[in-house]
């Protein structure tokens, strides 16, 4: 019987090999006992298709397994691996080293999120604000109680919100937002875009409830349409568009 190595063993024993290499600078910080952030440097070989996440995992496998990083799907779907990569918030699994056009890659925890350790940040506030805007259909009846089997929508009606339902809650938008940089009570572009996602859904009847929630001193009025949220969003959600549409209702531009 031939022994087949497990995938984990195989990965652990096969370091990336390539003629090209970069210097990967990883921010190290543990709020429990560190006074300030330090950087560790590693030389990592890479291929055209190597992602920043793969480079970090290479460090964990072969140099220092204690680097704290959160990831799961490795395909821009779970929203776990957001971090500052060369100064901008990006998904590590969705950012290829070759596209960064730099010999030095610096990875740091996402701005505007409290640090758990190294590259891992707390998401509690993002989930709280997301929850605050009632991210579900609001109406009196349900598909079970109504006579209709399901609430049908035309393709045009779906088109109104489908883009905003692509959100994977990665938090990159909140990290790039200039208001979030100074105001931790701001509801943030992620939650505001989700408020629009439900308001724009023809099956939803909770528009007034949600508009009331976001019509707050730390709500939608703190958005100044800088658009950085939309520029960093890895799923094409375009939160800035949703937020302006939402504000259009409050300002009377839309009904």
């Amino acid at each position, binding site marked *: 019987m031939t022994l087949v190595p497990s995938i984990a063993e195989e990965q652990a024993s096969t370091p990336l090999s390539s003629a090209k290499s970069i210097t990967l600078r990883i921010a190290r910080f543990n709020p429990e006992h560190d006074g300030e952030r330090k950087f560790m440097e590693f030389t990592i070989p890479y291929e055209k298709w190597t992602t920043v996440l793969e480079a970090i995992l290479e460090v964990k496998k072969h140099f220092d397994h204690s680097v704290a990083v959160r990831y799961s799907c490795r395909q821009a779907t779970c929203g776990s691996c957001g971090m500052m990569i060369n100064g901008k918030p990006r998904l590590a699994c969705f950012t290829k080293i070759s596209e960064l056009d730099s010999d030095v890659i610096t990875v740091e925890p996402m701005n505007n999120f*409290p*640090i758990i350790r190294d590259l891992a940040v707390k998401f509690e506030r993002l989930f709280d604000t997301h929850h605050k805007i009632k991210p579900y259909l609001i109406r009196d009846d349900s598909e079970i109680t109504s006579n209709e089997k399901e609430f049908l929508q035309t393709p045009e009606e779906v088109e109104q919100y489908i*883009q905003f339902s692509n959100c994977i809650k990665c938090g990159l938008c909140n990290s790039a937002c*200039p208001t979030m940089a100074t105001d931790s009570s701001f509801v943030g572009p992620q939650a505001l875009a989700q408020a629009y996602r439900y308001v724009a859904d023809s099956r939803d009847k909770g528009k007034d409830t949600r508009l009331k929630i976001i019509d707050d001193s730390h709500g939608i009025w703190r958005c100044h*349409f800088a*658009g950085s949220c939309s520029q960093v969003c890895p799923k*094409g959600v375009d939160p800035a*568009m949703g937020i302006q549409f939402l504000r259009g209702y409050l300002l009377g*531009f839309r009904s």
Partner: protein
Amino acid sequence: MENHDENKEGIGGMINPRRYGIERVAYLLMRLSGLGLLAYFIGHIYETSSILKGQVGWNEFLALTQTNEGHAILAIVIAMCVFHTVNGIRVMLGHGGVGVGKPARPDYPYIPASQNARHKMGIYSAIVLAAIAMMYGLAVMFGE
């Protein structure tokens, strides 16, 4: 990184215009011109209140604006005024959802429709018009 608890970027991150395109430059200029105009407005009220000291006081204060420094400050005020007005109209329309694109199924590479050429043109126009107005102001004031 000063505030470890929140890890907020702070004012330095808020005003950094280098990472997110011309829209973020416009955001910074809008804030700066807003603050500048507010300072000018306060100074203006103070200046006009000098009329309470009679014509001599008024003329003395007015003479300050006739110096080279006074002219330079007024030229900057003109630029701030024009930029804030033109960009303000763009931002106000945007805030109402005008010209920010239409929702659609996003396709890779996900160019955000709200950051479109019309808005970029609006920003560049505001900057160019402010520069022209400032130069005209300088020509009038220093050309006397």
